[in-house]
């Protein structure tokens, strides 16, 4: 700060309604602040972040010639930007500002009013001392590359991709499986409207395929991400599917021609409920309409002695190439949308429900395939032995709301259980028993759907099923699966024999979520789903600029919410792209050349190679474009030659001293 100018600090203490005022004595805090050095004005106000609150700051800057502002309110992660903008509008450099977090770090975490207030005072005094040293800073700008990467081709990725593509942006859509469509492609009907999933999904899927602005890479995974918001450098590994997407016409004759006369390989799209050939297409409406060869089971790969009738069938198109190699694509994008979805809870983890032990215990997803007209049984709901079930039990909350597995409510199970109850009853006329802890139907038309099911005379028994067993205590139970449960409303224990048990398994983060998280440098919440920047104010943003979230990778949600979120993520990306640039934080490092002794300690400190050694002058120099502003080199410099904007040594020293004002 220049010597001439005298520091005139304004301190503003926020009540945040009663969030702060209830535990921190805001009046005495403001009074205390008023007595601190360089403070010319100190106020407390109900909501500093509100317009009138911000106006206060602007006016005082004008009327009282304030040149430093301290706001004591919530976390800087919430409103630092808000107040900096207020300073800017008030004609002051936005970085003559420091924020004190007396909500998350005082009023919300301490009970004793006196102690909380004392702590708040120390924090304010620290800020007042610190802000005196603040310097005017200019934000840099990074241009935003208009192309977008979307990871995951489920309904979230598809919707986001189409939204952006329709807005004229180019989208790279990367999907791990051989087709896009995700979980939704496996569903038959969707709740509560019971409209067929395929009818609403497949048109979107083909639209993706056809769209000139979308580059679709299935059977591919992102393996490397470099760079920063505006220009991420991404490497995508494309697994060989052994059928050339450009040459293949999708006639599927190769599949018919396969030497395997009938299918032998468990079909994972149908969760093993049907079989496929070594060359196959996941499902009839798959996008792209291009077969895949599975080297694990293809004879040619195993023995090299196959008649390769598939290649013959393909004829002069020569689309099948069994020597296809994995391929790496390198792309540059400005923004990324993660739509990597979820996985369903593994029912083997709750052995007392007999999944994997009793053949007629199914997971809900398996039953989705059974009721599906294009499924393994063409929509016939039959047991593995071909029998039609006469009584079916649907067990809710499998792997949800349970400290032994997952604590959270998976949000969709109640509704899809109702849907399956309806469909199974429709297909088989069986007696259906729903076993639930609490029925959760908060959504448009959801409660009405529940009502409909009640009138369809589906049984609803409130109680968490204790066990599914083949132990028969009564002749009528012989050869059946017996569900033992307390009917908590009737008030006694019941044994209900059924032919089929459906486990409503919950939603959990994908096993590889931690790796994906590291790849894109974002955080996970405690359950393992990706962490949004703010649950209400920035629900699709992450803490890494330019990386957005859509769908169940951020937490369990149904299709309507997923699509809505995907649209929001696309809009956030668009906002960045169309702005054309993003203002960067100025907290980068720079070298004071006269002090630098050329020891090169800093060079090894920087993972971004932002610090380079300039041989001519035998000193280090920081490339401020590459610098991400961590300050590690600053702390490491033995001669104190490197400085970091906003985190200058004297600023932090002042803050440390301020903490000891011993209020």
């Amino acid at each position: 700060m220049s010597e001439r100018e005298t520091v005139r600090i304004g301190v503003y203490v926020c009540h945040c309604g009663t969030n702060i005022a209830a535990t921190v004595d805001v009046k005495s805090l403001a009074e205390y602040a008023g007595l601190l050095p360089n403070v010319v004005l100190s106020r407390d106000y109900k909501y500093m972040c509100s317009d009138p609150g911000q106006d206060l700051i602007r006016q005082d800057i004008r009327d009282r010639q304030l040149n430093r502002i301290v706001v004591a309110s919530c976390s800087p992660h919430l409103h630092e930007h808000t107040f900096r903008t207020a300073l800017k509008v008030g004609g002051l450099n936005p970085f003559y500002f420091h924020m004190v977090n007396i909500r998350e770090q005082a009023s919300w975490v301490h009970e004793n009013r006196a102690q909380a207030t004392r702590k708040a005072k120390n924090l304010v005094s620290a800020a007042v001392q610190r802000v005196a040293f603040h310097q005017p800073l200019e934000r840099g700008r990074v241009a935003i590359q208009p192309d977008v990467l979307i990871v995951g081709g489920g309904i979230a990725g598809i919707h986001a991709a189409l939204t952006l593509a329709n807005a004229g942006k180019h989208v790279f859509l990367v999907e791990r499986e051989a087709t896009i469509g995700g979980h939704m492609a496996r569903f038959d009907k969707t709740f509560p409207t019971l409209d067929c999933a395929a009818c609403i999904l497949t048109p979107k899927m083909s639209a993706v395929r056809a769209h000139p602005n979308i580059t679709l890479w299935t059977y591919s995974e992102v393996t490397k991400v470099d760079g920063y918001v505006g220009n991420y450098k991404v490497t995508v590994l494309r697994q060989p599917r052994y059928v050339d997407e450009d040459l293949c016409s999708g006639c599927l004759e190769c599949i018919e021609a396969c030497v395997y006369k009938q299918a032998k390989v468990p079909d994972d799209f149908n969760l093993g409920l049907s079989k496929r050939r070594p060359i196959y297409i996941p499902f009839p409406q798959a996008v792209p309409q291009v077969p895949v060869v599975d080297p694990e089971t293809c004879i040619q790969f195993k023995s090299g002695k196959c008649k390769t009738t598939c290649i013959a069938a393909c004829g002069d198109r020569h689309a099948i190439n069994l020597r296809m190699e994995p391929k790496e694509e390198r792309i540059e994008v400005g923004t990324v949308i993660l739509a990597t979805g979820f996985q369903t809870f593994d029912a083997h983890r709750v052995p007392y429900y007999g999944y994997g032990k009793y053949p007629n215990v199914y997971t809900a997803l398996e039953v989705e395939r059974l009721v599906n007209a294009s499924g393994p049984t063409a929509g016939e709901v039959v047991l593995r032995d071909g029998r039609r079930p006469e009584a079916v039990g649907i067990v809710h909350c499998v792997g949800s709301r349970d400290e032994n597995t997952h604590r959270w409510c998976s949000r969709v199970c109640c509704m899809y259980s109702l849907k399956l109850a309806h469909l199974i009853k429709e297909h088989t006329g069986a007696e259906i028993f729903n076993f639930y802890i609490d029925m959760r139907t908060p959504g448009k038309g959801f409660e009405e759907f529940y009502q409909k099911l009640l009138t369809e005379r589906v049984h609803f028994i409130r109680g968490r099923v204790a066990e599914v067993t083949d132990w028969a205590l009564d002749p009528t139970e012989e050869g059946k699966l017996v569900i033992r449960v307390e009917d908590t409303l009737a008030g006694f224990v019941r044994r209900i024999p059924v032919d089929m048990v459906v486990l409503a398994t919950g939603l959990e983060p994908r096993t590889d979520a931690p790796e994906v998280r590291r790849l894109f440098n974002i955080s996970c919440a405690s359950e393992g789903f990706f962490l949004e920047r703010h649950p209400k104010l920035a629900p699709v943003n992450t803490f890494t600029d330019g990386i957005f979230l859509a769908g169940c990778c951020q937490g369990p949600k149904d299709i309507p919410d997923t699509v809505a979120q995907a649209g929001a993520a696309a809009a956030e990306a668009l906002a960045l792209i169309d702005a054309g640039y993003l203002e960067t934080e100025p907290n980068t490092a720079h070298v004071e050349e006269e002090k630098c002794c050329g020891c090169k300690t800093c060079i090894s400190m920087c993972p971004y190679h932002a610090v380079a050694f300039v041989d001519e002058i035998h000193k280090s120099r920081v490339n401020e474009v590459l610098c991400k502003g961590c300050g590690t080199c600053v702390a490491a410099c033995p001669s104190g030659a490197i400085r970091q904007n906003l985190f200058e040594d004297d600023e932090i020293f002042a803050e440390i001293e301020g903490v000891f004002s011993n209020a």
Partner: protein
Amino acid sequence: MMSGVYGYFPGCSLKGTGVAYEESLLALFRALHLGLAELEDWNCCGATSYMSIDERDAFSLSARNLTMTQKAGHRDLIAPCSACYLALRKTQDYLDRYPKIAGGNGSLTSIRAVRVRHPLEVLYTDVGVERIRKTVARHWHGGRVACYYGCQTVRPYSEVDRDHDPVRMDELLGAAEIPTVDYSLKTKCCGGSLTGTTHDVGVRLVYILLKEAARKGAEAIVTVCPLCQYNLDAYQSEIRRSSGERLDMPVLYFTQVLGWALGAEIESLGLARAISGRKRIAQWFQPAEKEAYV
């Protein structure tokens, strides 16, 4: 700990109704060349009843046994009775988590250093399925059996096996070529002392366990707990009289069948102490001459 000897806590039952358990356990450990040293002047574990009267007294009992184990210099204490096993482990857990039970001046000290073990788990982890398979000395010519784990050996404070679907007894018997059936009630309660207090209820539970085992084609039930064995063994004639169902099912200790398979002296397995299914036992456990030398 293959070297050294295991401390051994019989508990009241193994000196009374469960004496066959003790006999066969000792025989089996001899056959495996494992040392067992009975704890000097041990006291009752307090079982389940004690907890209902006075928590602190209950923990004092096990605390004493643990302290003496440590004094005796044993790292492991084997408690074959489910009730004893649970009482000892629960005591360790509670005295650790709740200093206020231990008493301000730590008068009750939880001896974490002592590892409370169940013979089933010792056989599975310290000896191992492989060694059992290699040591098999007699071919089983009995029928299929149902492995019954009961409750407390596989519940919260236990390390014996998975609490919902234990398998270790099945695996050990499998290694000894003893065929087992899939028994859905393997962890259901036998009623414990209820057969003595609310007799009808207790016997009903026993009846269900026996009936389901028979229904699954088991010709005998194998247990790991003296109380389970007693309940299932002692009331079959009563059930026969009241329900008219022909039940005469041997109820054995896993130490008896494994002892047999691993070549322990037959007369030391306490087989004569069975009440039900004596005929079947007599047939199954007679040594075929040629196999005596295997």
